[in-house]
């Protein structure tokens, strides 16, 4: 083993998203015990020097490695799942994980079509013997509860009719709520919840545009409340939202839950709007999504993702 290079490749094969199976087979399959020992000595991130004079695997590292090996399996299982079961399980997992994962609930409730969300609610009945709204209401506490319950319960009109007056008055209602934001938190405001959780997506586009034209910049106004901002983005500019989730997942220092966003977004959007997401990703971050995945992910997991995001390109 030409030490520094192969050591570097080996370390890289274990870092990032997924594992580089081919390199692992090629290098580890052929190296001598002496070389493996050098690897252990030369990789202090993975192995620690035990007091009884041997190099042992860092337990935490092994755990992380398990996740990385499982990433491909998880992607495959998620991909083959019925979309209804998939969304029901995503929501349940988010509820279990707690507030830092609630963004997934917003994502599922706001980016799926009305019928898809209904299907997910049905699957939730079958899988968990409860309705999704009863579990969300029971597990989510504090100010987020009202919004999240309302979002998962929505069955939005999806036709083309939009009443301009209604959109204007909704925009005004939002403006009022934002003005009073220091007295009454936005996410608790009944009018904000009403508009975001009952109106059709086309109607919300009108509201979004009207607000930006006649009141303020809505993205700025929402800066104080990340959950609301997520909801508005998911409803009005979903590709922007998804691009941000992908970008965060592909960062080197991303934490565990954030990284899961990569599999989730690719699997759930590959057949919906991946082309648009790729364009938006490029607009926002200058890089192509496939290049970023190429740089950050490894092995079968990487190949699977790249195949998924390209699958509709020929059309």
């Amino acid at each position, binding site marked *: 083993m030409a030490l520094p290079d192969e050591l570097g490749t080996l370390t890289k094969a274990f870092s990032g998203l997924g594992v580089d199976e081919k390199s692992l087979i090629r290098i580890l399959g052929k190296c001598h015990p002496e070389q493996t020992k050098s690897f252990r000595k030369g990789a202090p991130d993975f192995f620690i020097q035990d007091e009884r004079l041997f190099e042992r695997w860092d337990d935490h590292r092994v755990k992380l490695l398990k996740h990385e090996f499982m990433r491909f399996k998880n992607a495959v299982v998620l991909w083959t799942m019925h979309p209804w079961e998939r969304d029901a399980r995503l929501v349940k997992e988010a509820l279990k994980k707690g507030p830092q994962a609630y963004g997934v609930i917003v994502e599922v409730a706001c980016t799926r079509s009305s019928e898809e969300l209904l299907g997910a609610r049905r699957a939730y009945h079958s899988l968990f013997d409860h*309705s999704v709204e009863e579990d969300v209401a029971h597990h989510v506490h504090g100010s987020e509860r009202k919004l999240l319950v309302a979002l998962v319960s929505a069955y939005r009109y999806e036709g083309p009719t939009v009443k301009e007056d209604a959109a204007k008055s909704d925009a005004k209602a939002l403006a009022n709520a934002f003005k009073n934001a220091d007295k009454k938190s936005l996410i608790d405001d009944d009018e904000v919840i009403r508009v975001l959780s009952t109106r059709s997506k086309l109607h919300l586009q009108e509201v979004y545009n009207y607000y930006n034209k006649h009141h303020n910049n809505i993205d700025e106004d929402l800066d104080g409340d990340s959950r609301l901002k997520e909801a508005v983005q998911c409803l009005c500019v979903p590709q922007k939202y998804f691009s941000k989730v992908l970008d965060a997942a592909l960062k080197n220092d991303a934490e565990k839950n954030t990284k899961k966003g990569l599999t989730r977004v690719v699997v759930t959007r590959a057949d919906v709007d991946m082309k648009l997401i790729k364009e938006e990703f490029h607009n926002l971050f200058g890089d192509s999504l496939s290049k970023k995945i190429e740089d950050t992910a490894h092995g079968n997991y990487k190949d699977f993702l790249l195949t998924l995001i390209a699958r509709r390109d020929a059309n």
Partner: protein
Amino acid sequence: MATLIVPDNVSPSQDAEVLRKACEGWGTDEKAIISILGHRNAEQRKQIRLAYHQLYQEDLVKRLESELNGDFEKAVYRWILEPADRDAVLANAAIKKGETDAKVLIEISCIRSPEELLAVRRAYQHRYKRSLEEDVASHLSGDLRKLLVGLVSAYRYDGEEINTRIGNSEAEILHHAIKDKAFNSDEVIRILTTRSKPQLNAIFNRYREEHATSITKNLLGDDAHPNDFQKALHTTVRSLTDPHKYFAKVVRDGIKKLGTDEDSLTRVIVTRAEKDLRDIKDLYYKKNSVPLGQVVAKETSGDYKKFLLTLLGEED
């Protein structure tokens, strides 16, 4: 049990012909209309509409709307619509009425099954190009809005599984809310608008076991004049736990309003004739010692009366 009486053999095209004849020329043969439509179930009525359209290139509903009038027309119009579409029309009328009488919306969201409620929401979107919840939300405010939007948006688990631990803790929560007169607490609304019906029954039973009174009594509080929200809460719990008793009361109150407002009586008879109007009749008799058919015959008149009696299964 249903009160609707349906003959064994029916032919939609024959029925369509009879109805056509009844509407042709001067005047209308209301008797024929009642004798056909008053003895057909929802599926058969749907087939008649299709056959009528095929034969005469006209919508039977529109034709009847133009031929009939008054309370009779309203009743027939509601009767002939498909159940989900009918509920959508009733819901929209209730929302537009501007009163905060939430009865109709509560009935639709609490007494229909989860799948039926979904069908109503779809029918509503189809008819009015907006979602039911967006109209409810924009016409109401405050506590009533929270309750009703929650109720119409619910897609309750419809299995039989109940969790005793949850039942007990939810009953405790309700008890505390009622004790503090915090009827509009988010917890009360959460429980009523999200839990499944079997689970709710378990919760209310537990409440009665622990506190020796039924929750419906306690929800009205000590006030002689409960506000609209309290009334709505009361209606919600009664609809969820004992719909027959609830409807018997609506009918009784509806009969008192006759002369000014036939809507309640029409609504109950039309929407329950194919479901459980017999049970409601029996309960009505038990509570008022006079058969419902007799009261309807006395308090209503004309074709409206004949139609109601037919749906009630009372034949002459």
